[in-house]
């Protein structure tokens, strides 16, 4: 597998999972306020 494929997949996964975890954390942490 080429480096470009690895970089593209890694960046996509990090961006998507990072955003989802950040959003869910932010919602749940402020849920009771």
């Amino acid at each position, binding site marked *: 597998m080429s480096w470009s494929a690895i970089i593209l997949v890694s960046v996509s996964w990090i961006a998507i999972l990072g955003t*989802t975890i950040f959003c869910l954390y932010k919602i749940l942490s402020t849920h009771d306020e």
Partner: protein
Amino acid sequence: MSDLKKRSSWNNDLTMIIAVAGSAIGFGNLLRFPAVAVQNGGGAFMIPYFICILLLGLPMVWVEWGLGRFAGYHGHGTLPGALQVLDPQKKWLKYLGMFGLLTPFLIFVYYCYIGSWTLAYSVFSFFSPTYKEAFGCPDAMTQFFNDFLALPSNGCPLFSWAWFFLLITFILNFIILYFGIQKGIERLCKWVIPMLLILCVIMIGEIAYVNHIAGKPETQTYVNGFRWMWEPDFSALLRPQTWLAAAGQTFYTLSIGLGIILAYTSYLKKKDDLTLAGLTAASMNEVVEVIIGGSLLVPAIFMFFGHHSDVILKETGTFGLSFVSMPLIIGEMPFPQFFSLIWFLILFTAGLTSTISLLQPLITFMEDEFSWSKKRCIWVLGIFSFICVQVVYLFFHKGVVDELDKIAGTLFIIITALIQIVFLLYCKKINFIWEEIHHGAKLILPKIFKPVIMLVCPIMMSTILLSWIYDEGMAFLTMSSVDPEKRPYVLMTRFMIIGLFIILGITIHFTWRNKKQNIYHGHHIEKE
């Protein structure tokens, strides 16, 4: 505002986010995205796709959430009312909102039929000997699928399994809707995330099992499947079609231009967070699409079919992938009947959350504008849509579904989204919506998104629309790309859509006229 009836609201942010994500997560995420990505540069497709999500998808999601909540304050949850409250002086604006009602309804009438196939296959998993026998043979599986969809050659066309499951699915949609956003949709959508986790486990199990099938070529490994999906072809970035495909997939996946977001968000309160909720719903959607669809499902298909996967993804399309290829892969696993049941139940649930959402704009419209009870709205819409669904069932093989998908699923969603953004600009309400989006927001958007909403979104959407007109406009008008045998049916579909526009236009006209008269009489009686 005193004459407005009290609107119901969501129990909490999270259930509403799950409902919006559930409406957006459907067959398109799991099956359409990998096919589009493989055809448009593999891993390189992620570059235009992320750019489109960032510059078109997310800004439009936030605009729809803001517009929906703003319209909700004024007692409207659909596009005709939302456009009218943008500028009450311009009476014609509300008629443009017809797109926001018809688009989801037209998609519902064929999506409901496709969803019913997944329910049928769930049942066939255990109760159809022919289906079980077809597990090992691609030709037999294709034949089984074609036989299932064929109308009975003698006797009443309604006495078929396809019609029976359509009826069950149709009734199920309306039963869930009957319980309303407080119960039905929330409860159903709470199942979406556990179901998707089960899907992940099945996919991983499938990959591990298929890896050990005897006689399988050594090249058909998970890593090769992953490479086949993600190896970038950067030359694809120079083709305009790649960018258009990325923009189209963005619309499709985030449910932009369907009127669903407007209907759901019109039930939000002023203190609710729009920016974070919109971003969460979009990112949950991407998890399903890129991680489950692109990184688990497609490599699993490759491990089974090898380089024939190319043909399967590009030529058989979503239907072939769901109802022929996947049962064949599942057939190779231990307990195939059980896994077939789970696979089709997951697809059915994903489809059901989408079809219920597609009906929501018209229900909301009738509740808001006619002040009808939910029960009455569901009965009226149920009877009307039942007739339309029969047309789809009877003329499925005559190109009716393809035509509805082309008109509503491709053209109208872009027009609906474009109408929203253009008339926000025309009515000089961009600043207003920007502030509305930020009411109660825990996440403040970077200011760069404001010019993106004002300039980039309308330019990108106009480009998509114009390129569609340039590429397919003439062929669409002359029906040159349609099989001559199917042309009368395609024409019938178009007349049906025009008829629905006329009915809806007249309804909107008289509804607003009656409202005006009621307000006038109300003032008159008060004076007396």
